[in-house]
């Protein structure tokens, strides 16, 4: 059986109904364990003190913020090439989740930045890049909201997603060029000397995977809603006409 069969809305609805309970349970369990472990049972960092606990929110949300955009790019391109409605509706469903993740990453980054760098907001390249990413999410959602015909909206947002991705990458390099920044380097390196030791690492991985499952739960749920909304709109339109 080919993966494309899930592009059939009815099949997708059946599939997502079976997996949703498992995925959502995994998300809840992993996030709870990861966050509780990280919050209550990890020592303070010798330089950063207790602020290191913010990492269990900051890093997973930032990772998701970028990966969700990539997922939207992929599903949008699948729509452009193969015209599977479920694919582009998944992109539409993912955008608000991505925007929220970006916002969480920004908020936790700013709160963390205050004690570490002495300021809430620093035009640090990574922070700035996330701000730009947030604007991209807003633009993408606004374009969806502004267009009435769902297929036209799907096509135009896909084009925006593709062009936006290219510009997001260019912006990332431009911002790096513009300001070198204060952020830590590879935060997840296994190299013990390069910070983030095992004690912090284990709950962080749990939290990361948990955020991944949370995204999966939400995106499945929201895609189901979008499919129902499409069916609802189609039925209503027919009622009006006939």
């Amino acid at each position: 059986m080919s993966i494309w069969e899930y592009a059939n809305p009815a099949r997708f609805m059946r599939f997502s109904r079976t997996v949703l309970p498992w995925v959502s349970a995994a998300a809840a369990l992993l996030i709870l364990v990861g966050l509780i472990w990280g919050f209550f049972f990890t020592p303070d960092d010798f330089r950063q003190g207790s602020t290191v606990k913010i990492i269990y929110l900051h890093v997973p949300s930032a990772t998701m913020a970028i990966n969700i955009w990539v997922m939207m790019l992929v599903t949008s391109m699948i729509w452009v090439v193969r015209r599977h409605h479920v694919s582009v509706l998944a992109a539409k469903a993912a955008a608000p989740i991505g925007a929220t993740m970006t916002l969480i990453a920004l908020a936790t980054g700013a709160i963390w930045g205050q004690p570490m760098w002495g300021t809430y907001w620093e035009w640090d390249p990574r922070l700035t890049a996330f701000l730009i990413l947030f604007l991209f999410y807003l633009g993408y959602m606004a374009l969806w909201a502004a267009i009435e015909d769902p297929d036209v909206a799907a096509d135009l947002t896909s084009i925006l997603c593709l062009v936006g991705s290219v510009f997001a990458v260019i912006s990332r390099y431009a911002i790096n060029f513009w300001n070198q920044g204060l952020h830590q380097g590879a935060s997840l390196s296994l190299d013990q000397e390069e910070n983030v030791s095992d004690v912090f690492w284990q709950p962080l991985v749990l939290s990361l995977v948990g955020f991944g499952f949370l995204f999966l739960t939400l995106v499945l749920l929201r895609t189901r809603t979008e499919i129902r909304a499409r069916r609802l709109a189609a039925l209503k339109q027919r009622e009006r006409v006939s």
Partner: protein
Amino acid sequence: MWALLIRDLTLAVRAGGGFGLSLAFFLIVVVLVPFGVGPQSDVLARIAPGILWVGALLACLLSLDRVFHLDFEDGSLDLLATSPLPLEGVVVIKALAHWLTTGLPLALIAPALAVLLNLPGPGYLWLFVSLALGTPALSMIGAFGAGLTVGLKRGGLLLSLLVLPLYVPTLIFGAEIVRRAVDAQAIGTPLAMLAGLTLAAWACLPFATAAAIRINLR
């Protein structure tokens, strides 16, 4: 093609074409900034490159919704889409007309407005060069946004929301050129990046824009 360019330029400079509005807007932005930040000439000189670039960028944004929308409303866009001209070519001409009537005049008057902000001596030449090199990218990216929103009744605000994030790299490299010129640093890298950005935008975006317009016409 030339006929389309000449028609667009003629319409832009005729009464009601909105030519000059962007220039006036640019002037007002530059005049307002000292009221906001105070009259100290050293402060103004420091921020002048950024203000001039941001002002030019906003002025450029102002006239973007006219690029395709007028032709969409009066049916010309339908007719152009069924004409022998490739729609990609129409996009290029439209963006070129926008640049000639907005970007180029902005680049030309920017050095004059720089006097108001006490831009240090070496900056003037590079302000003009960077704007002349960067505003074509602004026009083309803006035309892409205009193509995306051409079917919408009130697309103006959405257009700004879509286009402004795309302007980030152009703004960064453009303003950096002027800042480095003022500080007598090497400007080769940002200059090359800006030129590359402009070329890439003109090479790739006409296709995306034409695709967006075709979708909007159906």
